[in-house]
């Protein structure tokens, strides 16, 4: 027993030393390089960026895949580092991969509305993918608000539709996002004044709102970093995710005004009253194969807010999968590598020929 205690003591001392040494190194080390998978930027227009990743195998599936990123965050969450990149995983599995990513809107982009994001950016990206590949079929894969945009485009264009539609943690019943509902209560939140004054929804405001969903989250993450400073893999992962979660984008004013009024206040996607550019969004007329993957412990888009989507989609070939993980760990990191990515590949591969 004495030797076991001595071993434990030695291990504790070694970790304490490593924490100190690596902690000093951490402060001075450069940020990790993220999103570095080889690609071409084929469209750069306003806040829209469309990437085409270079194939990494000799033969790809006929149907290309278009990933649609959430408008509040950067798309490199899909392409962190080699071995932890959904993009790289899909390329190696034989998909021709495109991504619709976002830059911060500029002041002149303040008037971009939901219609621009859905019809011009998602619709424009699909047209570019079709042009670049010569294929009329495209699979849409959207994350969070990128999922909402993908669903909206599909609900407007069900006659031509995507070949396949897969979305991750996509909210539809905004009444169930109780904290966001409380904070945007129209009695206290004057979205018109915010947009008319600033032109944008500032990234800092959005970051604070996301942070407040888990008030102790940041302190707890910093403690976990200090505790695990001896563990290189933990530190590397922490840096990647910390950088990504802090790298939020502002939202174009009109887009933010419209999403607040239509989606959050009127809950019109859930109510079936959503219109974009005067056209109805008809989720019940989406007939392509549909997959919705949600996370069991998602504190941002709760199960109550995302689960009803499957019932609104008209497709006879539809599936909802609830996987372990949170809003981010569902799509990136070891949990995603083990659970979601193979599930997506299994579902999409057979439908991509």
């Amino acid at each position, binding site marked *: 027993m004495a030797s076991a205690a001595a071993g434990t003591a030695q291990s504790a001392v070694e970790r304490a030393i490593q924490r100190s040494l690596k902690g000093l190194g951490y402060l001075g080390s450069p940020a990790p390089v993220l999103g570095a998978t080889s690609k071409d930027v084929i469209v750069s227009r306003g806040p829209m960026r469309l990437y085409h990743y270079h194939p990494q195998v000799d033969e790809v599936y*006929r149907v290309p895949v278009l990933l649609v990123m959430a408008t509040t965050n950067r798309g490199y969450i899909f392409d962190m580092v080699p071995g932890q990149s959904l993009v790289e995983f899909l390329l190696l599995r034989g998909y021709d991969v495109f991504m619709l990513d976002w830059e911060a809107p500029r002041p002149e982009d303040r008037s971009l509305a939901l219609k621009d994001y859905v019809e011009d950016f998602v619709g424009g990206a699909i047209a570019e993918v079709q042009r670049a590949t010569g294929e009329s079929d495209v699979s849409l894969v959207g994350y969070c608000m990128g999922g909402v945009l993908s669903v909206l485009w599909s609900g407007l264009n069900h006659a031509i539709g995507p070949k396949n539609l897969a979305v991750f943690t996509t909210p539809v019943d905004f009444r169930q996002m109780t904290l966001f509902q409380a904070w945007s209560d129209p009695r*206290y939140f004057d979205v018109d004044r915010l947009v008319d*004054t600033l032109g944008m929804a500032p990234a800092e405001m959005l970051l604070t709102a996301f942070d407040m969903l888990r008030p102790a989250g940041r302190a707890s993450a910093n403690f976990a970093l200090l*505790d695990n400073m001896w563990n290189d893999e933990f530190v590397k992962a922490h840096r990647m995710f910390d950088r990504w979660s802090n790298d939020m984008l502002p939202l174009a004013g009109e887009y933010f005004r419209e999403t607040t009024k239509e989606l959050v206040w009127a809950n019109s996607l859930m109510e079936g009253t959503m219109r974009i550019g005067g056209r109805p969004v008809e989720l019940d007329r989406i007939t392509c194969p549909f997959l919705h993957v949600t996370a069991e412990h998602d504190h941002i888009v709760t199960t109550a807010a995302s689960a009803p989507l499957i019932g609104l989609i008209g497709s006879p070939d539809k599936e909802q999968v609830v996987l372990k993980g949170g809003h981010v760990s569902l799509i990136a990191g070891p949990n995603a590598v083990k659970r979601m990515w193979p599930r997506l590949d299994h579902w999409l591969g057979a439908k991509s020929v």
Partner: protein
Amino acid sequence: MTDTPNLDPFALARTWMAQWEKMVNEHGTELLAKPEAAQAMQALSGAAIQAQAASNEATGRMLAAANLPSRADIEALGTRIASVEAALVRIEALLRDSASAQPNPPARPAVPRTRKPPA
């Protein structure tokens, strides 16, 4: 049999932190969901927006007095540049379409789109 004593100084802190995190998240979100919290947050946010608007206005007047372009002027220029960019994109697309009619080799060899899922 006696357990080996835990000599890791972080062990106690870890337990305390987990409890603290659970408590703060539970009670914090409960508190933040109250209408009073939303009202207070939006009052603060409204004041910040008001201050920003006043600052923008004062800066605009100062820049005009110094015969310098204001933010609105720069934004107007940005809008015009964006429309020039959009025109360039259209021209590029037209050039690309006309070039694609030529028998030029593609920049990167096309990968056959014949893959089948594993059985």
